[in-house]
C-alpha cells in the first residue's frame, strides 16, 4: 500500500491500463506536455509517446467524435474533458453516437470509451468550472456513469472503466484531487464491481447516500451526528448508472430512512431517481419520505456564494434531522 493523492492514484491507474493494453490511448486538451490542467496525465506522454497521449485541437465534439473513430479502429480511448462545464459541445457525440452505437449496430460495434470529467465545485473557480452534469448522462441509456470518492477507488475504478467494453463516463471529484489515501498499487483492478455501491460506515438510524466529493462530507456528518446519538449508515454510490439498488434497498430496509445528497441541482438530480426507486422498493419500510440535500435549481453561482449552493455538513445534518423527524429548518412549516 502506498499513500497517494487522488490525482496521483488516477495517474497510476492510467499508467497501469496503458501498460496492460497497448490499445489504450489518451486524448484531450493539454494532456501532453502539460499533463492536463490538473496534472492527472503527468509524465504519461513522455513515457508512452505522442501516439498514445494525444494533445487534441480545442474542440470537444471533435475529441469525442474522433475517439469514436479510434474505437472503430480497435483502440480504447480515454478522453479527458478539461472541466465539467466543457462537456456540452460533445453532448451530441456522446448521446447520439457513443451511447447508441452498440445498440444501433446490434452489438457489432463496441464503444469502450472512458470519458473522464473532473466535476463539482468548492474550489473557488470561475463560471463553468464547478458543474455537476452527471444526471444528463445517467439519464442516457447506453452509458455507464461512475464516480470514485477516494484514491483507492480512483485507481481501481478507472482501470475497470477502461477495461469495460461499454462506454463509461467517469466523474472525478476535482475538489478531492489533492487528498491522500492508501492505494494498493499491486492490486491492479481488483476490487468491488464497477457497478456496485459500498457501505462506508455502518449505522442503524438512517441511510445517507452520497457520491464523489460529498462522500467525505457525508462521513464527517456521520461522525458529527454520533455526538447527537444518531447512527448514520453512509453509502458511497460509486456507480450512478446503474445504481446499485440492492445495496441501498437493503440498507433502507434496515434503517427505514433515506437521505440522498449531491451537488447537482435537485430537480431531476440523482436524488430524485434514488428517492423514487427506493420508495418503490421499500415503501412499507419507510418511516419518512426520502430527503434530498442537494444543490439548488440554479446555475452554479459565482465562487463567493458557492457555499450557499453546495451541501455541506450542516445542511446534510439538517436533512438527517428531517428524515428522523427531529427539529429541523423546516419544522415551522409543519402542522
Amino acid at each position, binding site marked *: 500500500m502506498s499513500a497517494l493523492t487522488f490525482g496521483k492514484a488516477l495517474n497510476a491507474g492510467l499508467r497501469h491500463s496503458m501498460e496492460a493494453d497497448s490499445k489504450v490511448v489518451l486524448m484531450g486538451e493539454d494532456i501532453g506536455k502539460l499533463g492536463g490542467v490538473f496534472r492527472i496525465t503527468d509524465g504519461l506522454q513522455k513515457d508512452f509517446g505522442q501516439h498514445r497521449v494525444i494533445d487534441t485541437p480545442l474542440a470537444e465534439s471533435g475529441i469525442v467524435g474522433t475517439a469514436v473513430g479510434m474505437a472503430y*479502429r480497435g*483502440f480504447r480511448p480515454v478522453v479527458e474533458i478539461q472541466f465539467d462545464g466543457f462537456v456540452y459541445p460533445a453532448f451530441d457525440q456522446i448521446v447520439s*453516437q457513443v451511447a447508441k452505437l452498440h445498440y444501433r449496430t446490434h452489438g457489432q460495434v463496441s464503444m469502450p470509451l472512458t470519458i473522464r470529467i473532473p466535476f463539482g465545485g468548492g474550489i473557488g473557480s470561475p463560471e463553468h468550472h464547478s458543474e455537476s452534469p452527471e444526471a444528463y448522462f445517467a439519464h442516457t441509456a447506453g452509458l455507464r456513469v461512475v464516480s470514485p470518492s477516494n484514491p483507492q477507488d480512483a485507481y481501481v475504478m478507472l482501470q475497470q472503466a477502461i477495461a*469495460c467494453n*461499454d462506454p463509461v463516463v467517469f466523474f472525478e471529484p476535482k475538489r478531492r484531487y489533492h487528498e491522500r489515501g492508501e492505494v494498493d498499487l499491486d492490486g491492479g483492478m481488483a476490487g468491488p464491481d464497477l457497478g456496485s455501491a459500498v457501505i462506508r460506515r455502518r449505522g442503524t438510524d438512517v441511510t445517507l447516500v452520497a457520491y464523489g466529493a460529498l462522500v467525505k462530507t457525508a462521513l464527517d456528518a456521520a461522525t458529527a451526528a454520533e455526538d447527537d446519538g444518531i447512527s448514520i449508515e453512509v453509502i458511497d454510490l460509486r456507480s450512478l448508472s446503474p445504481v446499485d439498488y440492492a445495496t441501498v434497498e437493503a440498507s433502507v430496509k434496515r434503517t427505514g430512512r433515506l437521505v440522498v445528497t449531491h451537488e447537482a441541482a435537485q430537480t431531476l438530480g440523482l436524488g430524485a431517481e434514488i428517492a423514487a426507486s427506493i420508495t418503490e422498493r421499500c415503501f412499507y419500510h419507510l418511516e419518512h419520505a426520502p430527503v434530498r440535500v442537494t444543490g439548488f435549481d440554479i446555475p452554479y453561482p459565482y465562487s463567493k456564494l458557492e457555499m450557499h449552493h453546495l451541501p455541506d455538513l450542516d445542511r446534510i445534518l439538517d436533512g438527517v434531522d428531517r428524515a428522523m423527524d427531529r427539529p429541523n429548518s423546516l419544522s415551522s412549516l409543519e402542522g
Partner: protein
Amino acid sequence: MSQPAGHRDEGLIQLIDPSGRRTPNEELDPWVTDVDVDALRGLHTDMVAIRRIDQEGTALQRQGELALWPPLLGQEAAQIGAGRALEDDDFIFPSYRETGLAYCRGVDAEDTLRVWRGNAYSGWDPFGKNMATPQIIIGAQTLHAAGYAMGIKYDGGSQAAITFFGDGATSQGDVNEAMVFAASYQAPVVFFCQNNHWAISEPVELQSNTHIADRPVGFGIPSLRVDGNDVLACLAATRIALDRARTGNGPTFIEAVTYRMGPHTTADDPTRYRDANELDLWAAKDPIERLEKHLAGLGLDTAELQAGAAVVADAVAEKLRKAIIGLQDPQPMDVFENVYSQPHATLDRQREHYALYQQQFADAGSATEGGAR
C-alpha cells in the same frame, strides 16, 4: 485582404462531358489509364443496378413495405466512382444516402433497405463490410472517419478512411472539426462531399456563398471539385485522394457536384420549393446516359449495353423484393438487447418486468399483443 473566390463556374473537373465526349485532364488522366471498355461497362452496370435498387426502395415505400426511403437518383456516378476506387479494407463512413457504396461493398440490397422498413438500425456488420451503417445525425460520421484515420496512422496501417456527406452537412460544426483534426494529424482520410445542390428544401447557396471545395483549403486540406455526374472523374479523383492518404500525404477533400433528382426522402415534396426547370437542366447531365453515350462513341451498342445491365439489375431487384417482404418482424424482447455488452442491473430489472407483463397476454391466451384487457 485575402478575398474569397465566390461561386465561379469554371474549375469543375471533368473527364466525360454530358455529351459523352472524353475530355482530357492532365491531373486526372494518369489515374484512369487502366479503365478500359470492360471496366467502363462495369461502372455502367453498377450505376444501373443501384438506380434500380433505388427505384425499388421508392416503390416499396409506396406499397407500404418501407416506412421511408432516401433516394440517390442522380448521384449514381458519384457513389460508384468513389466506391470502385476503394480497396476492400478502406473503411467507409457514410450518411444515409450511400446505397451505392453499400452495393460496392457487397451489401445485399435487402440489408440496405430493411433499416428503412424499421426492422433494424443496421443492416450489416460494419467490420464484415468495412463500412459503417447509416448515420442520420448530419455530419457526425466525418469525425468518426477522421478518428479512424488517426488510428490507421497510429497503428501503422496502410488503409484509408473515407466519409460521405452532403452539401448541407458542411455547415455543421462536426464536419469542420473533422477537417481540423484531419489536417492537424495529417490523417489518411478522404472527405467526399456529394453536393447535390439541396439540403431538403435549402439550396446549397444558403450553406455557402463560395464553392464548397474552397472550404477545406483554408483548413490546410487540398481539394478537388469534380463533376459528380461523371463516373470516371469521380473514380479518378477518389484514387488520387486515396493515394495521397496511403502515401502519408494526409487528408483530401472531394466536392462531387451532382444533383438530387428525386425528393429528399419519400416523405418530401420538392415541388414546394424547387423549379421543374432545374430538374430538366440536370436530366441532361444524367450520369448513366452520359456513360452510355461515351460507350456508344467507343463503338458499343447501347441497347445491348442496357440489356446486359438490366439482367444484373433485374436479378438484384427480384431478390430484394422477395427478401424484404419475407422479412420476419423482430421480437418484443429485442428492445432490451445490446444496450450494453454486459449486464446492467436497472435495465435487467426492466427487462424482467416487461417479460412478466408480456407473459400476461400469453397467459390470457390472447393471440395478439395488447389484448389482455
